[in-house]
């Protein structure tokens, strides 16, 4: 059965399809171009090392095999405010956004099997710009501020199964539902509010896709380990209402992490990952299609002194990567330095991790962006 869309509605949909990418593509920041900024799906602990331990960190839903590291029922959540500053033409402006990027729950079944569920932010698309406009209407110059605001994200909901067939081998698979909703609201705020009525027009876009991932860890407790993960993206649809605007694929992801713990009290880590963001195709690509990118980091975790009966861990790391969506046609590069601290409270039942990341972003277009990200994670093992 086919459904005929009435002519006017059809025209509106076509217009919306044309306008949504145009509105959403450019947003006054380097980091949230296109479909948004990828926080990386890292926990506060991983971020403290620049993401270097992410492949083997159970609180970072990157490698399905890693959740086995919980070893017990666990619940982990995270908050992550970011404070950005964009500099262009000699002037700077600060903004801030609040993220809750990772939520992980895991439950063991027997000694060798664990099931987990997680929700993490794949792309964060929160931004707002305001620019003064004027238009000549019937001989009058009408002045107003035009504000465009985007509020939304793409989330990765994963159901994870991990298995330990041997003491040195961990395996995992995960089913992913990549869903999201983004509301781009364009508003006009007139100087003369007696004659003119302000406008606010929201356009809600939804995304639905899926993916499948698998991971493996090879562990030698006295030396460290190697972890590998791969996510195969399935179809991804962009819709307005019940009308499909565009189709693409969830980006494939490949990551490798190496951890060396041969020095007492010290863990050294390296990780690199490749994301095939180009699979997003033409979704919100008015300012340039998404580009594949590498994401690499090195870091270390040190066992620190004890504060009373509380053990401490310190972390440092560095990360460099390209962001998926170009700014004015140029790929955005991000380099960051990170540090963090971890505390084990309540006789090991509560883990508190905090990380601080200083990131610098540029695209070679005369606009630079820097950001402080404060990441706080709480893991409870009842």
């Amino acid at each position: 059965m086919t459904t005929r869309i009435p002519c006017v509605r059809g025209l509106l949909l076509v217009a919306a399809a044309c306008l949504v990418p145009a509105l959403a593509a450019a947003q006054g920041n380097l980091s949230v171009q296109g479909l948004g900024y990828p926080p990386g799906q890292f926990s506060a602990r991983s971020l403290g090392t620049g993401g270097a331990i992410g492949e083997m960190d159970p609180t970072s839903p990157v490698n399905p095999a890693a959740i086995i590291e919980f070893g017990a029922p666990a619940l982990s959540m995270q908050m992550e405010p970011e404070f950005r500053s964009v500099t262009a033409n000699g002037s700077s402006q600060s903004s801030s956004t609040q993220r809750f990027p990772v939520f992980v729950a895991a439950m063991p079944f027997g000694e060798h099997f664990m099931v987990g569920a997680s929700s993490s932010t794949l792309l964060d698309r929160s931004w707002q710009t305001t620019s003064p406009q004027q238009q000549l209407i019937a001989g009058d110059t009408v002045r107003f501020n035009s504000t465009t605001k985007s509020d939304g994200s793409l989330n990765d909901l994963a159901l994870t199964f991990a298995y330990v067939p041997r003491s040195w081998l961990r395996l995992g698979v995960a089913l992913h539902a990549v869903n999201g909703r983004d509301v781009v609201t364009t508003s006009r705020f007139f100087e003369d509010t007696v004659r003119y009525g302000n406008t606010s027009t929201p356009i809600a876009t939804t995304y639905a896709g899926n993916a499948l991932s698998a991971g493996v860890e090879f562990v030698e407790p006295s030396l460290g380990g190697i972890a590998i993960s791969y996510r195969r993206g399935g179809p991804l649809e962009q819709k307005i209402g019940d009308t499909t605007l565009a189709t693409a694929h969830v980006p494939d992801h490949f990551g490798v992490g190496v951890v060396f713990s041969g020095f007492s009290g010290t863990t050294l880590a390296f990780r690199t990952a490749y994301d095939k963001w180009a699979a997003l195709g033409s979704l919100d690509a008015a300012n340039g299609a998404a580009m594949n990118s590498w994401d690499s980091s090195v870091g270390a975790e040190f066992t620190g002194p004890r504060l009373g009966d509380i053990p401490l861990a310190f972390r440092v790391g560095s990360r460099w990567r390209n962001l998926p969506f170009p700014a004015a046609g140029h790929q955005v590069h991000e380099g960051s330095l990170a540090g963090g601290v971890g505390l084990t409270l309540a006789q090991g039942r509560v883990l508190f991790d905090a990380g601080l990341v200083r990131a610098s972003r540029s695209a070679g277009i005369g606009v630079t962006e820097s950001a402080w990200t404060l990441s706080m994670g709480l893991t409870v093992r009842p």
Partner: protein
Amino acid sequence: MHLPRSRWVVFAVAAVVAAGIGACSDNLESNAACPSLCPGLADSLRDTVVDAVMIDSSVSGFPAIGQEPFLLIGTRGDTLDTRAIIRYDSLPTFYVPTNSPTDSAIVGVDSASLMLRVDTSETKPGAPVTISLYDVDTGGTDSSATDTAVAVLAPLFSPDRLLGSKTFAPESLVDSLKVPLSNDSVYYKLSHGRPLRIGIQVTGTDRAQIRIGTSVNFVPPQLMFKPAPHGDTTGVTFLSLSPMTRTPVGSPLINDLQDYLIVLKGTPNTTAPLLTVGGLPGHRVYLRFNLPSSIVDSSTVVRATLLLMQVPNPLSPDARDSTTVWPQALLASSAITDLGRALRLLAAAGAIGLDTLERFAPADSGLRQFEMVQLVRAWHTGLTATDPRALALRTALEGESGAEYWFYSSKGPLALRPRIRLTYAPNRSVGGSP
């Protein structure tokens, strides 16, 4: 106080978490990279003028009798002759003397007068003004419809019914004017159980008019007298009475006929295809629109302006004095088909964003604009009961001023008819709201 280190750590963790929660509010605004990285204006505003008036009509009789907050009493030669009627349908026959525990019958009246509260802003000084008070009792025992008829009341303003008068010099026209009344007439009325109904006429040589307060705004004329015969008023204080009417119970006018205006000569009517606003008796204009749904229902209207072409009215009283013509939303649903009734059910002036930014005089001419964007939006969203997409026009001093405005109607010359200018942004919202 000494705390273990672990406690300090817990406090530190709590402080960091609190700082994070404190940063929960987003501040997403970022414009430093504009315009290179900012979205441009998605679509420009569009503008059109439409002949959207479906029905336009002037209806007189506003405000309703007895609903006037002020009464404009004047004799303006060829342009205006209005009189006020004040009713004291029940007069006391007993009073309580000072320092007496018992009532005493009123056996005489002394120092009778009518105290008028005057809005001096509408007084036209320049020459002496005479205020004359007449007995306009029609002789019936109760109020009836004919009691308010001009044809019945006008002949009663005759010299043989004069109750009193006083001439005021221009400088003595202040906010309280006391006009003497015949003591004998007042006593006759109260002693014979007759209503005292006073007609007020204002005369003079040059634009004689005053504007007095009424029961509607709680400053009605007061009947004052000493309830004792002349020469026997020692220790007797004044009685002060507010207007009172014996309108039969059940009459829609039960509370309205305490004080009201009659118009012997109203502002001039016109046979031209014009819309009339204001004047005496007051006119309101009813305008119903048929707006193009392709704009109103499928776009976001950012400005809607009613355009009316004013025609000069040199015959209007105070033709050179500026005042305001209000656009007001109608609350009457389409079930009310009588335009006069519909025009009585108006939203408050200024409600739903209706406004006019201009003041102009009846003798002026030119294009007048009335802003109505919020009302047009309300029609679209169904926030008002105004099934008919209609609007009323009235003067700010309706019934209190003779100013009468003329505008071309939809029967006027094509280029001068009422129109609506719409400025709008095409709608793009097809995905729901946030």
